């Protein structure tokens, strides 16, 4: 995965997947379906449990292709004192 792909298309892919999750969340197609998956799990519950797993997979992908990278030269560049304090606290840990 190149840096440019990560910074440009990554967030768009994640945004698209989140919209898809929200659409799939409204599962009108299983509203009155009483099928038991594996013989014990109502299909409406099974679908939404799968959706929880799909959400985790989406967020895992987000950490790979859309995670904001720390940029010390970005807005509100940290004060030197604050940065030094941060560095020393991290070293202590």
């Amino acid at each position, binding site marked *: 995965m190149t840096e440019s792909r990560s910074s440009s298309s990554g967030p768009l892919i994640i945004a698209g997947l989140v919209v898809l999750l929200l659409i799939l969340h409204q599962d009108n197609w299983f509203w009155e379906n009483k099928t038991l998956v594996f013989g014990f799990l*109502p299909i*409406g519950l099974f679908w939404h449990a799968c959706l*929880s797993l799909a959400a985790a997979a989406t967020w895992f992908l987000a950490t790979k292709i859309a995670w904001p990278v720390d940029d010390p030269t970005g807005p509100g560049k940290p004060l030197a004192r604050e940065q030094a304090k*941060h560095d020393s606290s*991290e070293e202590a*840990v």
Partner: protein
Amino acid sequence: MEWHRGLPQLIIILLYLSLLLLLGLFSSRLFKGTKEDYQVASHSIGPFLLLMSMFGTTMTAFALVGSSGEAFKEGIGVYGMLASSSGIVHSLCFFVIGVKVWKLARRNGYTTQIEFFRDRLGSDFIGLLLFPILVGLIIPYLLVGVISAGSVVQSLTAGLAPDVGMFQAINADGSINPALDGGIPAWLGSLMICIVVLIYVFFGGMRGTTWANTFQTLVFMILGVVTFYVIANRLGGQDGFVANLRALAESVPDDKVTRVEMGKTKFFTYLLIPLSVGMFPHLFQHWMTAKSSNSFKLAVVCHPIFIMIVWVPCVLVGVWATGSLAADVVPPGINPNTVLAFLVKTQTGQILGGFLAAGILAAIMSSLDSQFLSIGTIFSNDIYCHYSRKANLSDQQQVFLTRMFIIGIVAVTYLLSLANQTSVFALGVWCFSGFSALFPIVFAALYWRGLSAAGAISGVFAAIISWGTLFYHGTQTPGGLRAFKLEVPLGGENYEIMPVVVMVLTCLVTTVVVSWVTPKPTPERLAKFFDPR
């Protein structure tokens, strides 16, 4: 060996609370004496502790008790309405709001939301406006926790001392309440929980809170799954766990394994409720504890899975309680919120009952501690230190102040919990709606350069006026606050929607329109928060 009724539960509860106290006191040995260490653990929390503390903070007793109770009433649809929606939206908030706000706060030195908003908007008034709203919305949430803790301790220790006057549970009509009689009185249980939480928050600060949350989250997750396994095997009456699951599922009426009685638009609009985590002050403070932005990754990914692990078993137990196999066990007319505790008491031993009580208390306390610490921090940083004429208070003085405010808020919450035991429960979803209503403001503050101070202030007023208006209507309707929904007529049909839709839209439209027509923040101020174009 025959135990005295209620005694094993009491012993396990006391052991559990002692463990928490030890954990809090041990964590205080690592306290560095600074305000930053007390309020945000010196920004030292790594991925695992951040995941557990954030999950524990967002999951209340409702995750165990309320989920099974709601499933008992409404069927399996509650998982989609309350849990899978949270799995998507909570992580979205952690990712879109939490990580971004953490980076800005680390650069600019914020600990509380109010510090962030004051600086972002260049307005002192926004702090004065948000302060009573945030505190006002969180107090009922705290009350629900404190009252629930007392009720759980009382119901699960029932039978302990029925002959002692103060332990007797008398109904309004003068009869004995057998489900509670002889248990530790609710006021004493609540007091016990408040004191334990106060001690470990007082001494351990954010580090103690984070450690306690991690421990408590593990406790309630494991006990939830164990309880599910034991109840399934006892209630199913078959040989083998899977055979029991199948028998129980087949015994449940059709309306509980489907969503025939649940409105589709209500289900859809419930998606806005979990946006509340974007504005929870206690969660904001947990975000500030992260060692780096990468610490958020594990929490963002695992949060939906953890919700599933806790909620799916509880929802299944709730719907099983409506089935034919539970018909001889669950009495008709039972209070839905007592279904889980009732099944534990009747289907499992006293020891597991004690552990479940510890699990429910864990879920309650893992939210209470963060909320107490957060309100103490807001009072100290945003009100006293901000407006105090005594400039340059030392770290020790600020830690002392935060601790004093924490004692004050615990005392006030406890006293309020004694005054009103029932009506506060209906406020739960309204508190969440109030926080959700403010979501457009935090989102705009992070992603829209055009947000002006006037726009944000108007948005807060719009959110709170719409909340107040709908709240008033809710109290005037026959079903009360709990059942209040709006109906939107469209194409000859009425669609049921949650009041939160109106609150969020009112805040959003007002914020955008007022920001468009009022002076924008200066370029210097925007440069602190946004990358150059």
